[in-house]
């Protein structure tokens, strides 16, 4: 956390709205982008954005600098995203039991040929589209962990802190997600 950010947080904690805005405007674009990727819908993404930053506003006074501000913020983002799915009832049930999700993962992944066809060069936009589709095959928790790792570049340890669970659990979710995505993308990337 930079000195400037610390100062902004303290000023915001003391009720300075300009400082609060300056603080969150360093992150809100990324949060909105993540929400957009997560829900694939502008209205839902805007709802998530509002919910996240109102919660940040309400909870900032309790922030005690024990973690990075971004970790604390993304803990709220993950909570809001996972809850949002439950509320909107548009997605599958969020399992809190890892073994339950693992059962769904038992579909074989060994359908992939060894060498990719070099001629199958897919444009970036198409790739993104395929990956977005593949993301939909993941459970909400797998998807969130995958997105935090892949798009935001967080370490497993940091994601574990955000989701308040063990690093081993996060690792399992992530690797299950990756294998599931490989299966989903197999037909596209392999002849």
């Amino acid at each position, binding site marked *: 956390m930079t000195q400037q950010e610390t100062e902004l947080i303290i000023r915001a904690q003391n*009720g*300075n*709205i*300009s400082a*609060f*805005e*300056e603080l969150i*405007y360093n992150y*809100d*674009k*990324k949060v*909105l*982008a*993540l929400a*957009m*990727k997560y829900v694939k819908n*502008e209205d839902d*993404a*805007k709802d998530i*954005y*509002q919910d996240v*930053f*109102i919660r940040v*506003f*309400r909870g900032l006074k309790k922030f005690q600098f024990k973690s990075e501000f971004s970790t604390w913020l993304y803990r709220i983002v993950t909570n809001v995203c996972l809850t949002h799915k439950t509320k909107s009832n548009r997605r599958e049930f969020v399992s809190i039991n890892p073994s339950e999700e693992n059962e769904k993962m038992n579909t074989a992944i060994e359908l*992939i040929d*060894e*060498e*990719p066809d070099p001629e199958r060069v*897919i444009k*970036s936009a198409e*790739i*993104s589209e*395929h*990956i977005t589709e593949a993301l939909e095959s993941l459970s909400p928790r797998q998807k969130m962990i995958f997105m935090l*790792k*892949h*798009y*935001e570049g967080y*370490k*497993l340890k940091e994601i574990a802190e955000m989701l308040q669970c063990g690093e081993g659990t996060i*690792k399992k979710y*992530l*690797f299950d997600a*990756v*294998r599931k*995505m*490989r299966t989903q*993308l*197999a037909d596209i*990337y*392999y002849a």
Partner: protein
Amino acid sequence: MNHKKYKNLIDEYFFGEINSREKIELEEHLKNCDLCRSEFNSAKVLKDSLMQDKLPEPDENLLKQARNQLQSNLRKEITHSGFFQKLNGMFSSSFFFTPQLAAAALSVLIIGVFIGYFLFNSTGTMHYSLESPQPQKTNQQAVLSGETKISNIRFIDKNAADGTVDFTFDAVKPMHIKGKINDPQVQNVLLYSMLNEDNPGTRLNTINLINSSKQEQPDSEIKNALLSVVKFDNNQGVRLEAMKLLKKFNYDDQIKKTMIYVLQNDSSSGMRIEAMNRLVEANKTGSEFSPADLSVFREKMKQDNNNYIRYQAKTVLKENN
């Protein structure tokens, strides 16, 4: 051979979570294991694809909408929390007519009969609270005089058999304040009005009132409120007046950032021109632009739909090269 272990190491490898010892171990294993090498290759294909898939930046309009909505929601939050809530409770009855006030007035009519009975037919103790969690004792005269509104009577001792009663109620009194602009009490009301009043006319009047004061440079809290209004008030007239009032304040980094923000985000060309002029003026008197500021000017030079702004942006870039 423990292929499962190496499968996990492959994933850790591609997500940058592998340590050097494990990396060497994996590389050694891959030399001799076709199965894991196949796994590695398929993982690599996915990783290569993922490398090309970046999180797309959200549309600028969408971001602007979200920020505006957040600003409005924050105003509501402020209204309903802490100091502002207390302030609201103290002063809203004198300035605004609300459904709560109507309910309170109705309560006064109904409950007044009971109060009269208790006040003049008993010698009991009486409490009242003025938006305070701890009821305070008061005298009957203070409550009965003036325009105090009484509501929310709560009986502590409902049994009047022993000749005494005990109850609390809320008394809301219209307030009148006269004082200097830097008087904390005056300032609190002005800040509240500027940031939270729904009626843009009232917000505008508040800004004009501060502007008309003979004071050279009002308090820094007012400045912070003005910066917020300039950036986020949904009424262009209010934003413009706040912008003009900000000229009373010495130019500093906070004002510069706000001007850059306005130049970059405000939909009104009038606002953007005001911001541009303030920035240019400050630049002439020694304030420097950072590379980030200059990139905003670069963007404005190329994309702004206003000729004057494009021209000024070009001039700034030329002079700051």
